[in-house]
């Protein structure tokens, strides 16, 4: 079945994008802003100026309730993003980047290391951002297939409320690898699991964690017959209140469930 084929791809480890080839790809793609000497065109400087303006607006309001983000450390955050954007001016600054740098900076507490990690992280994440690859639509389609296969009752509800199938309530989840949904300690655990899962079980573990989030509250969603707006509101309110350990363990079970399903075919 078509849905099964799609799903089976999600449960196997794929080796596309191993570190070396990605590194080569990156260095082959020279930014117009790369330092090769000479004089920078006015448009390039103006473009970068605009980006810095946008970066400043977001850096100063990034996780300010978290004690780590003193003015000094916010400067580090700003440096990392400015450097990245200078090297990727064709992409430019996009809202959400601050959220991806912040946990790295908190745990590593080192500007250079955090920058390097962020560059590697963005190799996977950049396609999720608007105008850079349409990976978000693929995530939504994959979610749809997974729900259809693993929770038909939920799929039925989503089908009734047509809008549900767009899965836009997962937008922030996928854009930021759940960073806004979880407390910092849990972000570290979940991110490490996502990274490790690429080598151990599935390079699409984010999908299973997303599905686990939905499944954690399936009884509430079903009992209240929630539609798209109910569910987006529900998850906005639940942000940082999830029991990440339980969700993680459910996500692992869902990978196993799908693998078992495929093996038994």
């Amino acid at each position, binding site marked *: 079945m078509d849905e099964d084929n799609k799903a089976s791809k999600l449960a196997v480890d794929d080796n596309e994008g191993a570190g070396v080839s990605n590194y080569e790809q990156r260095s082959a793609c020279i930014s117009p802003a790369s330092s090769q000497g000479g004089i920078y065109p006015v448009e390039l400087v103006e473009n970068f100026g605009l980006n810095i303006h*946008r970066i400043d*607006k*977001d850096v*100063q*309001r*990034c*996780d*300010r*309730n978290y004690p780590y983000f003193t003015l000094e450390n916010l400067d580090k955050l700003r440096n990392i993003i400015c450097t990245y954007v200078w090297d990727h001016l064709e992409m*430019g600054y*996009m*809202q*959400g980047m*601050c*959220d991806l740098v912040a946990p790295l900076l908190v745990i590593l507490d080192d500007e250079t290391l955090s920058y390097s990690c962020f560059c590697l992280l963005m190799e996977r994440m950049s396609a999720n*951002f*608007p*105008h850079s690859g349409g990976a978000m639509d693929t995530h939504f389609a994959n979610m749809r297939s997974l729900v259809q296969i693993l929770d038909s009752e939920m799929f039925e509800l989503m089908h009734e409320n047509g*809008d549900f199938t*767009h899965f*836009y309530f997962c*937008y*922030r989840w996928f*854009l*930021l690898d759940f960073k*806004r949904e979880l407390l910092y300690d849990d972000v570290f655990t979940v991110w490490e699991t996502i990274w490790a899962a690429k080598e151990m079980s599935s390079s699409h573990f984010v999908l299973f964690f997303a599905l686990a989030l939905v499944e954690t509250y399936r009884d509430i969603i079903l009992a*209240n*017959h929630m*539609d*798209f*707006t109910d569910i*987006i*509101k529900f998850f*906005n309110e639940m942000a940082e209140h999830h029991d990440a350990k339980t969700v993680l363990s459910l996500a692992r079970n869902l990978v196993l469930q799908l693998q078992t399903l495929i093996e038994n075919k």
Partner: protein
Amino acid sequence: MANRAVPQRPNGQTPGKICQFKLVLLGESSVGKSSLVLRFVKGQFHEYQESTIGAAFLTQTIHLNDVAVKFEIWDTAGQERYHSLAPMYYRGAQAAIVVYDITNQDTFERAKNWVKELQRQATPGIVIALAGNKLDLNTMRSVQTDESQTYAYENGLMFMETSAKTSANVTEIFKAIAEKLPKNENTNTAGQGRRLVDSAEGSNKSLSSCCK
């Protein structure tokens, strides 16, 4: 849910009529869209309100005489790069608040573009309010009240200067919108404004599908 439109706190009175409206907030990044909503819905203000990713959905009910007006509010991401998501959220909206920052002329220009887009692509007859936010920073003002007032008048918009920080004019602007919205039987169908479409459909077909 059948009882969706019933306000949570009818304040002991028997609500005569319940009207439900979809309202969308648009405007440049960091002008205070989320702060206005947070003030209106929860009475709170965060000096460093984080940027909105995707969109947030909140509801708030206000009472006008014997009518309970329930706003279903879509708070959108402001950055230009997320523009393509906007039609999904303003499509089917009966009201919009286009927000700019009175200390930043660029955000006012961006607000004008949002107004143009709404008038071209959103539901015909949509009630649009222009909000010049950050009135608490009046000493750093760069957009003059006269200028916005004239622009709003010429384009048939409601206009208020607001401050999510001090709460000046926040409830007022929502109330003024509620007063202006038609409250006949056809507009209060619960759930009517909740439909979302994918962004491509929203941007290309909204005019034709709304004109039926």
